[in-house]
């Protein structure tokens, strides 16, 4: 079996899995809107015990988490928390205190919470409105990123199909590679822009509520950028290859 055929099959599987994930994710995204607290409100009447945790990943290793704990009819916790690494919070703002044993964030001081088993993180109790805009940006980003991924895999399939038919040096191939590389460049820039936007949103809300700003540590995805520049170079080589091939066929 030709190696291009194997790669083609892998790409097909990748495309199918991405589309399934895109579909499922899209339905969850637009049906629930990620407002878990709102969802729970209607079904809590007469509930004796219930436990639910919802997590949304955000940049800088931050997480927006929703905790619901009901025990013997008493609501122990029903709130959103921003999970932030302690290293991003100014040191003078942190004063440790003994934290009682529990499986949900417990108050340290004011609106700052801590989880017993987590030494490196701090939980900040926050209303949904604080994270709402960050989640909206994140949703748009997730949709765009998925679309970029699906287009890139689709173009890879087209490229591999040509290779499988022994059509190596044709103008189409170099344009496929160039488009994939532009998508990757676009993705790496978009990724950084989204990180910055979410950081700015959350930071301004924290500044208003607590009077401190987070130490920024945004990460630029160099892997994608360099790989895409590498692909641009390869695409250029393919253009030269196409010319060579044309010359060869003319000579014959």
């Amino acid at each position, binding site marked *: 079996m030709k*190696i*291009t055929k194997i*790669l083609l099959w*892998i*790409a097909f599987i*990748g495309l199918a899995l991405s589309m399934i994930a895109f579909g499922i994710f899209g339905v969850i995204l637009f049906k629930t809107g990620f407002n878990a607290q709102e969802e729970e409100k209607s079904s809590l009447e007469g509930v004796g015990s219930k436990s639910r945790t919802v997590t949304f990943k955000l940049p800088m*290793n931050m997480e927006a988490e929703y905790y619901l704990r009901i025990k013997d009819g008493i609501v122990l916790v029903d709130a959103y928390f921003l999970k932030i*690494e302690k*290293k991003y919070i100014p040191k003078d703002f942190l004063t440790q205190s003994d934290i009682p044993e529990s499986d949900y964030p417990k108050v340290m001081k004011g609106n700052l919470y801590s989880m017993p*088993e*987590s*030494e*490196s993180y701090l939980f900040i109790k926050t209303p949904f409105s604080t994270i709402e805009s960050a989640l909206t940006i994140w949703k748009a980003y997730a949709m765009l990123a998925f679309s970029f991924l699906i287009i*890139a*895999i689709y173009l*890879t399939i087209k*490229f*591999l199909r040509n*290779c499988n038919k022994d059509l*190596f*040096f044709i103008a189409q*191939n170099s344009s496929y*590679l160039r488009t*994939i590389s532009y998508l990757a460049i676009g993705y790496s820039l978009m990724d950084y822009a989204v990180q910055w936007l979410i950081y700015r949103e959350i930071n301004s809300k924290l500044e208003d509520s607590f009077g401190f700003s987070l130490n920024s*540590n945004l990460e630029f995805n*160099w*892997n*994608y950028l*360099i*790989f895409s*520049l*590498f*692909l641009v*170079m*390869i695409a*250029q*080589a*393919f253009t*030269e*290859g196409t010319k*060579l*091939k044309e*010359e*060869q066929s003319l*000579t014959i």
Partner: protein
Amino acid sequence: MNTLKSQWKEKWVNQPSLMLITVVIWAIFIGLCIQAGALLFTFIYSLFRPIVAQDLFEGLNLSALLEANPWYYGGVISIVLYIMGQKAYLFYLMIRVFLKINLVQPFSKEVSQLISSISYVAFQIGVAIMIASGIFKGMGKRGYDLDGLPQLVGNGFEFLLMAALLIAIGIIFKRGVEIQAENELTV
């Protein structure tokens, strides 16, 4: 030494954009080497002074894991160091491609071999990251605090995608070398 210097000068004159990218890749390569070196140093140091494990690299705190199980601690850091080392090697190979390639006559045996090597290294990194992520998830479920370690190794899928594309490109480059040689002979 002089030929190397003249080669550099020639490349800057003929392919300035490529050389500019090469400089950026050099910077990333050096950054990755420093990252891996710093983690290796603090890891060895932490075996003698456990307090160092509280800030191994950019606030990475694995003191709880070191306290709970030093063997797991050593294993986890070894995996991360392997991935970091391979990433640095990948960028080193890319530098070599950028230095070797000539966009007027791009197909050469050396570049073709380098592209094949890059694809294998990318595949190894992708698989290693996926295995590492599985291990980290398992350890997390068993109650070990791994701090920001999963974020440090990154995502394996992108490397696998990159490997798949580069394997195909490597094959085509081999064909390109043949065509270019044939053309040169014809002329």
